[in-house]
């Protein structure tokens, strides 16, 4: 697989919950070793996209390939190539870090020796070595998230899905995790990262997709996205985000109401996908 090859390809991907369209005809691709940031208001459909690509939810329409494998027809195979750091931390509170890692490692078909060797490596890198024999229920949120990341990396996946990995963490842990994400990316791991932290999206992502009402309203490099708000001098990613998605509160608004999007600064939005 060369560096320009797509590891994720999404075509007209749609997910309806009843009459509500959570993901509507979404198209994008992710190259090997690329980090694609997904930005969007609450309820925009970011997590649903991740759930579909990780085979946890079936799409209603459209196609998607992950690691060149169809997510519906080859879902078992797809799962061998991916890792997931979901919104909710995937750890059992009554099990120690080691027991959690052994359990998930075995489910992924790894031998006890391989799990031990990889756990040692990741726990050391994430400064959790001393806590490996403590039950996860006794950890702080930051500690849990570090073990959660180690769990997702046990299989050394070529594609990693990170759903708000630094949500609610202190600056130190946030820094450690971001640094670790960069390090993994340098080794060639492709990632899809959702976040509400504009700074995080800017410093980590090669490209950013802005998702709103289940659709991708813009997808480009951060530099190019910033050009979408020519009326602001030195715009930030947040300026772009608010310009494209507006200031209406989303997750409590009526979902069926037709949305006429007006730009943050009065003008209509330009939906651009590159």
């Amino acid at each position: 697989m060369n560096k320009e090859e797509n590891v994720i390809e999404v075509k007209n991907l749609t997910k309806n919950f009843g009459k509500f369209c959570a993901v509507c005809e979404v198209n994008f691709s992710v190259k090997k070793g690329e980090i694609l940031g997904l930005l969007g208001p609450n309820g925009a459909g970011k997590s649903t996209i991740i759930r579909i690509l990780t085979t946890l939810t079936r799409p209603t329409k459209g196609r998607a390939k992950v690691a060149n494998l169809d997510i519906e027809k080859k879902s078992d195979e797809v799962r061998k190539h991916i890792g997931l750091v979901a919104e909710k931390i995937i750890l059992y509170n009554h099990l120690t870090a080691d027991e959690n890692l052994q359990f998930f490692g075995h489910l992924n078909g790894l031998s006890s020796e391989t799990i031990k060797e990889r756990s040692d490596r990741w726990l050391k890198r994430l400064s959790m070595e001393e806590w490996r024999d403590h039950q996860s229920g006794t950890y702080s949120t930051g500690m849990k998230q570090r073990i959660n990341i180690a769990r997702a990396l046990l299989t050394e996946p070529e594609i990693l899905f990170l759903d708000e990995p630094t949500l609610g963490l202190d600056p130190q842990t946030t820094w450690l995790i971001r640094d670790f994400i960069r390090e993994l990316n340098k080794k060639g791991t492709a990632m899809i990262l959702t976040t509400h932290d504009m700074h995080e999206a800017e410093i980590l992502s090669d490209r950013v997709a802005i998702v709103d009402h289940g659709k991708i309203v813009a997808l480009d490099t951060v530099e190019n996205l910033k050009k979408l708000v020519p009326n602001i001098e030195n715009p930030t990613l947040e300026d772009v985000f608010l310009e494209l998605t507006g200031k209406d509160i989303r997750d409590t608004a009526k979902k069926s109401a037709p949305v006429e999007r007006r730009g943050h600064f009065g003008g209509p939005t330009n939906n651009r996908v590159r």
Partner: protein
Amino acid sequence: MKKILSDLWQIAKKDLLEFRRDRIRLVTFIIMPIFMMILTGFIFPSQNSIKNISIGIANQDNQTVSNQLQTTIENLAPANNQKAFKAKTYSDLGAIKNGIKNQEVNGGLVIPSDFSAKLNTNQQAEVIIVEDQSNPQISALATQTLSQVVNAFSQQVGMQKVNQILTTRVQVQGASAQSFIQPIITKLEGLIPGETNYFEFVAPGIMAMVVMTAVLTGLAASVAREKEQGTLDGIMIAPISRLSIILGKATSQSIRGLIQGIIVMLLAIFLFGVTIHGNIFLVFLLLVLGIFSFVGLGILVSAAVTEQETATQLLFMFQFPMLFLSGVFFPIQQMPSIMQKIAYLLPLTYAIQALRKVMILGAGIMAVRTELIILLVFGAVTLIIAVPLFRRMVTR
């Protein structure tokens, strides 16, 4: 297949380890069957036993024979040397009635002043049993026991009289007084030696019920908990068969159910003196098949619900009527025919029926083959429906 079994075992092992570490769940798990057995054992004691019922006795005759009758009643001790009655002395019928009104006693017996005189003059004497109509159950028990005692006493007196006649007036070869007083007697023949009590009837029912609850509620609650916590996603994203996920969880719940079933059985044997007359391995086989018959239903509910609370509520709706319809506490034969028909649609009915046959009557495998087949078929059919549904519904 080997991979499915190995993944299944990993999940079951993890569930059991997690369960063992959760002290509150562990304590509830052990206490629940103990609680259930003790409560049932004490609330529904052996139906033959009568203990310490307060009665009033007005012995207006106060002669040798009437005093003998009074002493017999006062000292009656049918079980465990505990007296049947706590007798209190009253002057007459009116005083006993007042005693009942004041809730001092639950019934009474009046021996009229002409009692001995009538017996001595070869007339029929009479005693009055007074009943407390405000408490029909206790009253029925007291009345029945008092009548039996009086009848037995009456026979004794009759025999003495007939013996007198036989020895002094009539010369009949080999004649006994009993053949005149009670020419016909009945003899009860059961399938097993000794008497059975209500607890022997109810213990197999509770065993089956506890096991069923563990599998049905436990499985649905366990899957719903993992959905709520998000850990199910961690399992679902592993490259393993969905079959091994759900069967792994079912295995850990089944092991827990069996342990609870064994706790109930041990308590029944050691605390309440229940004897298992049949083959113990057959009892286990029936419990395992009982579990098997419920796994499919458990999976269906697990697939449908996302929250523990919903799972518990939904299952309570099924379980509560099932407890009463399947004959855990009352024999199905006492129910109206429409209820009996419903009862025979429930797998728990067959599990209990078979367990009773084996545990109480010592039946062998051939005697319970119909129940075994029904449980097996019910389990297989529900599993065939439930597993593909689970696969689809968890990735909605």
